[in-house]
């Protein structure tokens, strides 16, 4: 076994105990990247030299007997939508090619202070719009479990990197499921925190009222470890909430006896893969065995989640993405005759088709004469969806649902049909609309050896509870944990 196959908490412990060095860890990480990333294509940029320099620093600290920070020597991959000072940040888009931010996102500063080593920036659907990482301007990422399949999205690069042992942990962002759905499709742990729990400063906005940064890890302990580092109030983000951050690492280890679990019936209707359903049923039995009480419940406005999301998210996106106009940074069309043609050509050439589709949808939803019927109506329905959750959380501690209706699908299978693609986020989207936290963890594998995820949803700021439920499940899941064996596809991919 090589060191890159360990979890973050194992690595930190071994470095602390001087069993291994950070440099050895980095060596194995980069060996793995060299070995598999041509197949996976998780990374857009790799910071090899800087990473090795930081690893040496950590080893020097160990040598000097200094106390090590909580993520000392942990190789982290960052979704390329989180800005990194001095390192190109593209959001998977041609329009931001060459943009080198002069500042760090708050989460980046927090990770660095915690000793984490940022090894590179990962591929994603352009501006986080997509569920398969096929909407990247730089080509798709492949699922380590089956290279002919998608890793999910939009945080597909971050998730595939961790699943392929190219990084111990990664940061993704989740606007409608973009952490949880790829985590499910790649067999990883992915947490979307409560809106306001983690600072968005430096997260390039897609839909500001829905976006959250969260960790993608190999196990629940690592997830808690990262949450301890990145959570908490930030003066630079007005929507970050000033609430004390509990020690998630500690709290997730308590038991779940008498935990009240609700299972929303609306999540188990048409479109759900039978293997996914049976994996869920089996998982619920494990929770029951651990002493939890399980009941079916109803979230009556679930069916409106998708249309509501595609009005609010696109409306916000149409405004958030308006700044990519070729004036200040990034891509500018080469030939234009006046200001308006510069705008038009820059944006027509710089954005991919899914981004343009969403900008147009959102612009329409906000237009004079349509605002009330679309955007305002969507906001009202969003309130109803939120109230659905508020009601059930007065009775239940957590909800358990599938994360994605199907395991990983094939590349190109859904690209030409945006509506089918949108349906892959049907279980994750309501959670963003309500602003509540949810975690996806692996609960089994399909006959094709593809991971299946389950989603645990909690009330606002109840990350402790969902991490505890996830940890207990993980410890007691009777299916053996697997690692993907990364094999080149039989036929040469024609995607690039």
């Amino acid at each position, binding site marked *: 076994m090589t060191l890159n196959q360990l979890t973050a908490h194992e690595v930190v412990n071994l470095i602390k105990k001087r069993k291994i060095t950070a440099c050895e860890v980095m060596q194995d990480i980069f060996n793995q990247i060299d070995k598999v990333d041509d197949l996976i294509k998780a990374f857009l940029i790799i910071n090899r030299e800087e990473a090795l320099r930081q690893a040496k620093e950590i080893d020097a600290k160990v040598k000097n007997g200094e106390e090590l920070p909580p993520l000392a020597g942990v190789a982290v991959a960052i979704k390329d939508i989180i800005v990194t000072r001095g390192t190109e940040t593209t959001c998977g888009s041609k329009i931001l090619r060459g943009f080198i931010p002069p*500042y760090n996102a708050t989460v980046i500063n927090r990770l660095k202070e915690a000793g984490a080593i940022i090894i590179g920036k990962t591929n994603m659907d352009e501006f986080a719009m997509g569920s398969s990482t096929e909407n990247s301007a730089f080509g798709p990422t492949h699922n380590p479990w089956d290279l002919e399949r998608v890793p999910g999205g939009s945080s597909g690069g971050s998730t595939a990197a961790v699943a392929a042992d190219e990084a111990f942990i990664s940061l993704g962002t989740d606007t409608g499921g973009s952490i949880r759905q790829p985590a499910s499709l790649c067999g990883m742990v992915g947490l979307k925190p409560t809106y306001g729990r983690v600072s968005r*400063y430096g997260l390039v906005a897609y839909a500001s009222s829905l976006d959250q940064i969260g960790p993608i890890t190999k196990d629940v302990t690592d997830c808690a470890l990262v949450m301890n580092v990145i959570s908490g109030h930030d003066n630079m983000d*007005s*929507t970050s909430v000033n609430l004390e951050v509990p020690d998630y690492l500690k709290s997730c280890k308590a038991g779940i006896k008498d935990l009240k679990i609700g299972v929303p019936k609306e999540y188990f209707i048409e479109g759900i893969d039978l293997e996914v359903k049976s994996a869920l049923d089996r998982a619920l039995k494990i929770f029951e065995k651990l002493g939890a009480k399980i009941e079916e419940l109803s979230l009556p406005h679930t069916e409106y989640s998708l249309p509501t999301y595609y009005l609010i998210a696109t409306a916000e996106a149409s405004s958030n993405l308006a700044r990519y*106009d070729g004036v200040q940074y990034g891509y500018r069309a080469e030939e234009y005759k006046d200001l308006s043609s510069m705008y038009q050509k820059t944006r027509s050439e710089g954005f991919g088709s899914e981004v343009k589709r969403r900008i147009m949808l959102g612009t329409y939803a906000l237009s004079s004469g349509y605002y009330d019927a679309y955007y305002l109506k969507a906001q009202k329905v969003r309130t109803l969806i939120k109230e659905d959750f508020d009601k059930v959380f007065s009775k239940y501690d957590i909800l358990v649902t599938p994360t994605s209706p199907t395991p990983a699908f094939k590349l190109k299978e859904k690209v030409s049909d945006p509506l089918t693609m949108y349906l892959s986020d049907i279980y994750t989207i309501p959670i963003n609309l309500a602003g509540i936290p949810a975690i996806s963890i692996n609960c089994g594998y399909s006959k094709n050896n593809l991971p299946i995820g389950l989603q645990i949803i909690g009330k606002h700021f109840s990350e402790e509870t969902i991490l505890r439920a996830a940890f207990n499940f993980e410890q007691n899941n009777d299916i053996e944990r697997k690692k993907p064996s990364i094999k080149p596809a039989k036929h040469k991919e024609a995607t690039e």
Partner: protein
Amino acid sequence: MKEEVVIGLEIHIQLMTKAKIFCQCSTDYIGKEPNTNTCPVCLGLPGSLPVLNKKVLEFAIRTSVALNCKINQVSRFHRKNYFYPDLPKAYQISQYDKPLGINGYMEISLPESKEKCKIRITRVHIEEDAGKLVHEGDIASSSYSLADYNRCGIPLAEIVTEPDFRSPEVARIFLVKLRSIVQHLGVCDGNMEEGSMRCDANISLRDAKTGALGIKVEIKNMNSFKAVKKALQFEVNRQKKLLTEGEKIVQETRHWDESKNVTVSMRSKEEAHDYRYFPEPDLLPLKVDLKMIDEIKRNLPELPEARRKRFFKDYQIPEYDAEILTSSKALGDYYEKAASSYSNRKVLSNWIMGELIRYLNEKKIEIYESPISPEKLVGMLKLIDEGVISGKMAKNVFEKMFKTGKDASQIVKESGITQITDENELFELIDKVIKENPKSVDDFNEGKEKALNFLVGQVMRYTKGRAKPDFVFEAIKQRIKK
């Protein structure tokens, strides 16, 4: 048809907080190297987020309260979306359906009537300023533009009035008073030429009999009080002429062209932007508690209206003088500073409202930049009172003081323009004048009082104005009276 003029104003004032509205950058941007007074937030860089500067809220509440507005305890920010290279996010963070202040008013006095005129204030809201584009030569012919984002994120309060103005002059008077109010509040320096106070107007003509509303035209780019009046008057005439000729008025935005003294069409209603306003998701609703409003109300500084009354009462000067002297904060401060060490307040106001303002206007400088400080003015007035110089000589001294910035006494010493205090010297001259003008002496004795003035004038001529006129008058009278 008899038309009535209907004008409403929209005024932007730059709030003089230390930091910008959503970041820590300084508001002191004028004259700085382009794009040096910026940060990721005011540059709208990807990933940056706005955080409201609490001082901006305080300044805007102060403004709203002074304009008798009701403060919305919960207001919110909206995004106003449009593309322009001076707007780095492609949206302006502004307020829309829930502004900070609503339903206020301001009272102004009009010269031709005793009664106060009440102008209703629709709203006061907070927003961010945009950057500036620099063109090579003219915007229409320039082959490129350069963007300077130093001004991005300067806090603005937008004040919108109801269409309560019936003439361009009333609009001008309102603006002068508004400027004085924001100056007294310490929230804005009110400099229209430099753009720290900017005014747009909506103007239409309505049927005076039926009250039927006309088509409204928006006028922009009026950079002084005078420009506002001139532009609005031009627009009244233009619209009246169109109506007389049976033409239709087009709903549009027009630019005031200062060099040509005309308004020029900028864009029609069809070309108007759809700003696609929606609530700003990056900022929380703006909550103002009653305690904060109360505290601001309690600590409100003296406003021009109260100051005017106080000047009238305490300094015993005419209402007109008090009105003029409080029309700008700096002018009032100047007067008070001088009045604190000079007791003849009317003489003081005459000099300030007359000579001083005339010279300042001629040189186009603000009173706070005046080369004659209040202390220096008082110094000169004291020389008059002591008889060292005459009032007439003082005008000469004043001019020199204005040019050189020197003290009156220094100028008097250097140029020798003092009054002749040696009475014998004067008597000699008086006798000479009497001798040379026997006809005038006779005229006087025949009852022609004016003849005496002529004789006094002759003495003043010989002394080049250095004689005390009162003394000469009495001396001649004594000598020639039969």
